[in-house]
């Protein structure tokens, strides 16, 4: 046994084995995805950027209650519609994206079918140069992303 260990030590076998591992990897195919020319396709359950559908929303504020960090701010008031009944009208639906952790609990809490607030599954690029202006999404920006210039909808797919 001692002779065998001595043999290993003398022939530097462990070092040559290590060199062979890196040597083999030199010629293997690389898995690098060269962003931004190539982008990975997020899965169908990926928690991406928010969207709101104002018509479907029933203003139950369950999403605001369920949010673990309380970043959804909802204001509504009652108005009499044509039929004379009380109807909730949304004044303010703000999401503070600076602090959002994209946990999806608000989407799970939403009772409408299909959901009125949901996390889209492909868009994740929303970097901005200023925090307070661009990362505070009001109802306009949530319903129509063209109002939020820092949100880039997912378009280019070259390698998935």
């Amino acid at each position, binding site marked *: 046994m001692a002779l*065998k260990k001595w*043999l*290993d030590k003398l*022939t530097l076998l462990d070092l040559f084995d*290590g*060199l062979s*591992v890196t040597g083999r990897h030199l010629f293997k195919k*690389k898995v690098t995805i060269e962003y931004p020319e190539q982008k990975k396709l997020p899965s169908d359950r990926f928690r991406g950027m928010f969207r709101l559908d104002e018509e479907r929303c029933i203003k139950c504020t369950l999403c605001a209650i369920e949010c673990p960090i309380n970043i959804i701010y909802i204001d509504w008031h009652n108005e009499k519609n044509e039929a004379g009944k009380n109807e909730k009208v949304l004044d303010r639906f703000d999401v503070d994206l600076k602090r959002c952790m994209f946990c999806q609990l608000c989407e799970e809490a939403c009772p409408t079918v299909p959901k009125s607030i949901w996390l889209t599954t492909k868009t994740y690029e929303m970097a901005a140069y200023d925090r307070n202006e661009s990362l505070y999404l009001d109802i306009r920006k949530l319903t129509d992303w063209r109002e939020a210039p820092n949100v880039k909808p997912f378009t280019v797919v070259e390698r998935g």
Partner: protein
Amino acid sequence: MTLSPLFWTYVKVVLLVATVPAIVGFVIVLAERRIMGFMQARLGPNRVGPQGVLQGLADLVKLVTKEDITPAKAEKAVHFLAPVLAVIPALTALAVIPFGPPVRIGKNMIPLWVADINIGLLFLLAITSIGVYGIILGGWSSNNKYSLLGGLRSAAQLVSYEVPMGLALVSVLLMSRSLSLVEIVRRQEATHLWFFFPGMIAFFIYFVAGVAETNRNPFDLPEAESELVSGFNTEYSGVKFAFFFLGEYTAMIIISCVAVTVFFGGWLQPFPHVKALQFLGLVPGAVWFLLKVGGFIFAYIWFRSTFPRYRFDQLMALGWKWLIPISLANILVVAFAILLFPGRTTGLVWLSWAFSGVFVVMYLLAKLRQKLAKRDRLAAVPQTVES
């Protein structure tokens, strides 16, 4: 018109000083990063130019335009001098290295080395020792006790590993009977035997000591990032850091060049007497030299990406307790081989066969043992791990 040899010497010096730092900055740095990347299952830098060829230029521009900081209480003169002392010896050592056989330009035979002094090896060892001053002074002049410690550790490492390096080259000296590098190459040509074969052990010792001399992985503790003491070049930025960097990489080139010259035949083509491979003679000697040096630089990069690093006391123990006794024993063995047989080369040929045979047999035995051990281990997988 025959130009005086002095003119050609000037041309060669200018060419060396102009091209070698450029090659270091543009080729070696990029090669290191790309090849290390490839070995690590990723691509290296490939955005700056096509395939990243301008990365060296980007690094150079960055380093040159950086603010030159000198610590407040540092010794200004020494702080300025230390990087210079690290670079100049490395560049000077290039003077004695033969890059190829003499070429014909016009009517002259121009040798491809700046100077062929008859104490070439000794000159090289002496000049690279001066480079240690750059490190010590760099560490000391920064007025930072951590850089001082790093610099001293680095200097101790360099000085300790010069001994086995020198002793390994002594055994080559026995084979070649001359310190002049050109003469060593010519002897290898004459005896049709590259000194790697009888000097296998000397080569391994020389290369390991060479890696330690240049502070490269696995001996780069003094400049590792994950250590507290980040080494002698903590307080250097900008051009001065670029000089230290350049000095280190040029030393890498020197060590590789010497290894090629002394052990691998310098500019000689492999298999000169095999008829089937005569076409190799069409490649000029200088190109062979560059290819071989490139192979060694690749080995440097390969080592860097594979091995963990030694702790400082283990590093010193390796140098003093293992490399020096082995290199001394190697000198004895080579001397015996030369004296035991008639003529000078017979002994060396016997030694080559002995070394190769023993090494190959031991390697095969070790591999066989490894295969058997793996088979036994796999048969026992579901049970608890052996202690």
